[in-house]
């Protein structure tokens, strides 16, 4: 994982761009299935409702912190929401272990990069953008916390 976040995002968006809309859904489903299960030490917090992304109707839980200057994201998404899970899978795969400044340097509308608009429709994309914004804000907060 020596590539920068920007390069990894390029790779993922190229991967999506090469697909037909239907195949894009299959690809997203693969990312959903590859999202690691929530480690046991986080489960109690999730069950207590902590770290839930309240902007999403779907239960989405995100733990974002820094290990040194590297971003660590742990996520849990309900299995009945594979679209959200797939998108979170993309973000976790792309951002995990990357320097915080690279994650913060990502353009905010990265959802559009994946060409998911025609496959998913506008309304669904908005929910996904929300998740990307939440990750961004939590990384910002972690960086601010470190410098205090």
């Amino acid at each position, binding site marked *: 994982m020596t590539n920068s976040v920007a390069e990894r995002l390029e790779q993922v968006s190229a991967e999506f761009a090469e697909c037909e809309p239907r195949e894009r*859904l299959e690809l*997203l489903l693969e990312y959903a299935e590859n999202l690691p299960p929530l480690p046991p030490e986080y489960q109690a917090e999730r069950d207590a409702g902590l770290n839930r992304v309240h902007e999403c109707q779907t239960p989405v839980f995100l733990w974002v912190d820094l290990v040194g200057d590297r971003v660590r994201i742990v996520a849990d998404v309900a299995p009945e*929401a*594979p679209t959200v899970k797939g998108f979170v899978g993309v973000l976790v795969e792309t951002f995990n272990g990357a320097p915080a400044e690279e994650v913060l340097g990502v353009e905010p509308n990265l959802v559009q990069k994946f060409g998911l608009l025609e496959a998913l429709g506008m309304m669904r994309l908005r929910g996904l953008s929300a998740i990307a914004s939440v990750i961004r804000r939590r990384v910002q907060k972690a960086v601010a916390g470190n410098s205090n």
Partner: protein
Amino acid sequence: MAKYAHPEVLVSTDWVDQHKQDSSVRIVESDEDLLLYQQGHVPGAVKIDWQNDLQDQLVRDYIDKDRFAELCASKGISNDTTVVFYGDKNNWWATYALWVFKLYGHEKCLIMNGGRKRWELDGRAWDRGAEPQYPRANYVAKEPDLSIRAFRDEVFKHQKQGKPLVDVRSPGEYTGELLHMPDYPQEGALRGGHIPGAANVPWSRAVNDDGTFKSAKELEALYVKDCGLSRRTPVVAYCRIGERSSHTWFVLKYLLGFPKVKNYDGSWTEWGNLVGMPIAKGVDPRPAGQGTSKSTDQAKTAADSTSAANAS
């Protein structure tokens, strides 16, 4: 009421399992999450997506009659096919699709009670294969049936006359505390709150934990006793974009047998963005259907209300 008014509109997962191969039946999955169908669907089911299939991609409206006919024909649905809808989120999108089919006059529309959830709880098999292709059918769509669809002018008139409205959104959306994100204007409206006089019955209160509809007696208590709705008065249901309210529309029309129920699909994203419309915030103490337009809550016109949208 001991029984549903039209129990024939609901079929069980068992019934669907037994009719998977029935050529007079077409099973249609309609979901919020578009990947669920790929992840596994009822064997033989086709997919109809509310955004990509049922809505016009340019104008905020449904597909027109000709495109509806083309959609049905392409899915092997003819005018006399029995269409059974099911989906995720307690059949939220299934009832939405059913409503659009009713709009274009499709007669035999059923709901698989409990939707995906019940099928999963039953431990029935999911098919992970591609969407089945059925031989093309002939379909002639009717003109839209506007007795089930309300537009803003008539909702405005309905509201001014003090007739009953049901706001089926969550309590937070109803009272106007916005669920609005810092960098991100949700599928939002510029103003928060509800149509003055509307009662708040969140749509999901009509379902059990296993995704099936509550009993006739429980629904009667919820909508008639607690909320004061009456079968004698026309009712308008709305939410944010008209999806959740199609679920309540289904409950009122088919399970409780209300003769006149309309879904206002413009809903809050239209009303809360229009200049000068009356808006109420907070909890409305007046139950719907009481026939008075005098509201005791903080009703204001949009023009003079404070900026609720910046609440977060």
